[in-house]
């Protein structure tokens, strides 16, 4: 062995010439390593592959001309972008390659932005400067973030676009859920524009809860809100039997009676067994409240709480007081004050109280309340920060109870503790936290929500958009959200509008719901007589709608007060109500309008004028439109509907003045409806 080694040494380094030769060869090899590594690099492999692929295509020449070899880089210093992704993703800008499905060659799908404007990693994350796929896509070393999975990609839109966008339903939904499920009641979310995200879940005050519900119901609700209502907003706090008992004992003991919460009715419920259901239907309760039907489907709106088992929840005298005037118990409620008479209150409450679930409270047997329970319950209420959402007399709303989430989307993964088996990425962490918050360590107090997988994905998307990057973006790039105005109607009519909760459904001057039409310009739009009559007896304008304006049993004085206010204040400056007459159009003009209506513009596709022949079901019925709308409004509407009501689905038909005048003449001649009777009086 030794001999062999000695002879090998002799052969290689025996004399200076040999030694020089061998060292030269070794040296040569070592300097060849760098160019060889470059030659065999991944991006070169992909670029060769790309050239090979385009060679046989009919558009080979164009593609070849566009091709640039070598490392490609998008450098945008003001955004901090150094992206070399296009070194491998060669065909990114080639719209002609849409038929190619082999990565990394397909072109980028159509988006409203240019590649050279933002680069790649701004939206996709990952390591833009890397030149190998694994490093660019998957690196988690030193807190680096891997590429963002496709399901969360809309979070990147949210960095600049602070409002909702039609093309980003996942992000919109996530932001909605953050506010609708009250996440932001405990977790502060400061938005990049300096405002704080507000919750929209409207949790009830618990200061007078004993007037409304029993201790037993509270216990059952605390144990599992979903057992009472499958649509419950309140999450499950996974309380032990004793803890739930003590919290309910405390809440009942802490509750103070509210004057007016038990009324004596001067009338009995209707003897007709169907009267309750029909009053429920006529009052359009289902526009806001859902009920689970026999097939297990939830039917109805989600503005108010689900009423499937309402009889097991509320005390009869409280419900009657609530139906008489909900604003007594909760001045800020979204529920209108219906002005039911005592007979109606009795009928409706009897109907609602029959909606019970005998199983719900069957097994709830609570010990008699003790002072210890109350003390412990109060302690638990602070411990779980119940007052973050609910108003509770004597308990202050805690500040910063849960971690702030304003920049959760750029949290370093080195600061996170992952569950075993969980991929070490930020989106997986956030999604995991929402899915099973208590799994991460014993003693955590975040409750268990029952979000579906798509809901968790959309919440994660919205949270990922809250990152450091979004706060450091150049102001010119950000697109602010349209903020809800704090418009308040004035005077006596204003008080009336708040009492009737008009804003729960209607939007006026940038404030309010979207269930019913925007009323910002209602005074320019409708005729006074029609509006008064409509308040007394709201008819159906849109036959296909299941949500309609309820009848509030307004007095004549109230209807007039509201009408006067609307006619005076909600005026559009571009529509002069009196500029066009409501009658006196020539027969020829009306006939021309009719031809245009049914012929050129085919309006009968969506609207009904002749109830016998027309069938259009989308827009409002126009059978008596001449007694409802002003001629000036119809004319302006024909010219440009979106200018009067942004977002309306009536298409702008770019009508000439003559066509618009003729159609106005035809429509304004469609008189009739309930207003006629008033005219007679």
């Amino acid at each position, binding site marked *: *062995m030794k001999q062999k080694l000695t002879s090998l040494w002799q052969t290689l380094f025996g004399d200076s010439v040999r030694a020089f030769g061998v060292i030269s060869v070794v040296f040569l090899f070592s300097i060849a390593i760098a160019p060889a590594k470059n030659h065999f690099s991944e991006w070169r492999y992909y670029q060769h592959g790309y050239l090979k692929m385009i060679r046989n295509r009919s558009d080979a020449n164009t593609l070849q001309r566009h091709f640039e070899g070598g490392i490609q880089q998008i450098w945008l210093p003001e955004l901090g972008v150094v992206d070399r992704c296009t070194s491998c993703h060669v065909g990114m800008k080639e719209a002609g390659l*849409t*038929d*190619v*499905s*082999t*990565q990394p060659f*397909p072109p980028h*799908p*159509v*988006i*409203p932005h240019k590649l050279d404007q933002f680069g790649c990693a701004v939206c996709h994350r990952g390591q833009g400067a890397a030149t190998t796929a694994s490093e660019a896509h998957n690196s988690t070393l030193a807190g680096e973030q891997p590429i963002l*999975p*496709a*399901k*969360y*990609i809309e979070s990147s839109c949210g960095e600049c676009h602070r409002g909702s966008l*039609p*093309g*980003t*339903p*996942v992000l919109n939904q996530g932001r909605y859920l953050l506010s609708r499920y009250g996440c932001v009641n405990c977790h502060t979310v400061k938005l990049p524009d300096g405002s704080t995200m507000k919750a929209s879940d409207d949790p009830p005050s618990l200061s007078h809860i004993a007037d409304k519900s029993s201790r037993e119901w509270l216990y059952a609700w605390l144990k599992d809100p979903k057992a009472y209502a499958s649509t419950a907003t309140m999450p499950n706090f996974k309380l032990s039997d004793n803890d739930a008992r003590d919290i309910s004992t405390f809440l009942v003991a802490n509750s103070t009676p509210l004057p007016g919460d038990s009324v004596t009715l001067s009338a009995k419920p209707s003897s007709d067994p169907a009267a309750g259901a029909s009053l429920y239907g006529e009052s359009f309760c289902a526009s806001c409240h859902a009920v689970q039907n026999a097939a297990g489907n939830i*039917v109805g709106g989600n503005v108010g709480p689900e009423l499937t088992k309402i009889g097991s929840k509320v005390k009869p005298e409280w419900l009657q007081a609530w139906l008489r005037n909900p604003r007594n118990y909760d001045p800020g409620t979204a529920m209108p004050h219906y002005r039911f008479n005592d007979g109606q209150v009795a009928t409706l409450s009897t109907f609602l109280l029959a909606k019970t679930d005998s199983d719900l409270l069957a097994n709830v047997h609570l010990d008699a309340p003790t002072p210890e329970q109350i003390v412990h319950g109060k302690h638990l209420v602070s411990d779980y920060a119940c007052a973050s959402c609910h108003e509770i007399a004597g308990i202050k709303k805690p500040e910063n109870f849960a971690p702030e989430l304003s920049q959760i989307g750029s949290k370093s993964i080195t600061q996170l503790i992952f569950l075993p088996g969980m991929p070490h990425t930020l989106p997986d962490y956030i999604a995991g936290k929402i899915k099973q918050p208590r799994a991460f360590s014993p003693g955590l107090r975040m409750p268990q929500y029952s979000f579906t*997988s*798509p809901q968790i*994905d959309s919440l994660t998307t919205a949270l990922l958009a809250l990152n450091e990057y979004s706060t450091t973006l150049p102001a010119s790039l950000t697109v602010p959200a349209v903020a809800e105005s704090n418009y308040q109607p004035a005077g006596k009519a204003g008080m009336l509008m708040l009492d009737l909760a008009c804003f729960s459904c209607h939007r006026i001057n940038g404030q309010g719901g979207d269930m019913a039409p925007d009323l910002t310009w209602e005074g320019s739009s409708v005729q006074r007589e029609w509006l008064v009559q409509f308040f007394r007896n709201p008819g159906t304008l849109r036959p*296909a709608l*299941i949500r309609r304006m309820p009848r509030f049993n307004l007095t004549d004085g109230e209807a007039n007060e509201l009408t006067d206010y609307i006619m005076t204040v909600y005026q559009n400056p571009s529509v002069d109500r009196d500029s066009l007459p409501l009658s006196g159009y020539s027969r020829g003009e009306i006939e021309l309008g009719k031809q245009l209506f049914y*012929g*050129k*513009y*085919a309006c009968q*596709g*969506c609207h009904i004028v002749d109830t016998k022949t027309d*069938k*259009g*079901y*989308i827009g409002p019925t126009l059978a008596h439109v001449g007694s409802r709308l002003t001629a000036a409004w119809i004319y302006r509407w024909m010219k440009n509907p*979106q200018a009067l009501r942004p977002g309306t*689905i009536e*298409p*702008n*038909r*770019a009508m000439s003045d003559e066509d618009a005048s003729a159609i106005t003449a035809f429509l304004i001649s469609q008189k009739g409806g309930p207003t006629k009777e008033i005219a007679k009086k």
Partner: protein
Amino acid sequence: MNRRSSANLILCIAILTSTLSVSCSRKSTPEQLPKPAAFGTAIVESSGGKQIAQTGALLPQPLVVQVNDEQGNAVVGALIEFQAAPGVAFDPANGLTDASGQLTTNVTLGGMAGRYQITAFTTDKSRKRVELKIEEIALGYQQTLGSYLNTQYCDRCHNPESTVERVSNYDNLDVKPHPFSEGDTLNQMSDADLTAIISHGGPALSKSALMPAWGATLSKSDIQALISYIRAVSDPASRAAGPVYGRN
């Protein structure tokens, strides 16, 4: 002695290389598949095909496939495996058919817009592969925007299906509009034709005036988005819908 030690050396090197190659090789042990209790001769779709979802999203409904025998009866305990292009995830990716001969899986689509071809396969008694191909549709940004515009402006007339919340206007129209899934008709129309009919209304192509002109309401990019949505959902598939991502 020399010969013996060199033989030892070679042995050592051989052991070292083999351990190295085994430990360094990336190939992990193949996933343990459940053992089939029965075999069928055909595999059919029960539900969940041709669904539409955004790229990277979970399909709204699970995919349910069934294994049948020669007589067309459901086979219990047959092994089904699902495969698709990289990026598509199945939960579970394989399993045995249940008491009704079916296997249900939740499908998450890949990150590219287009059609994803899913292969579900089982083996018959002679270990021959029996497969079923199912397509699902993934909407990218542009098609998602188109989908929103469709819901907002088009769907009430072009979709004959009514829901409780939304009554279809289809039956009220004297000339019936084409549902956007009607590929046989819509695939014959060029993008330019569709743009013309959306912008200028039905009469632009001598069709019904019941189709209004949207050119003054929707922007050019909105109309493009709508067309890309229409192409994406047409059945049979439009060539303009882009590539089909299959197993590769």
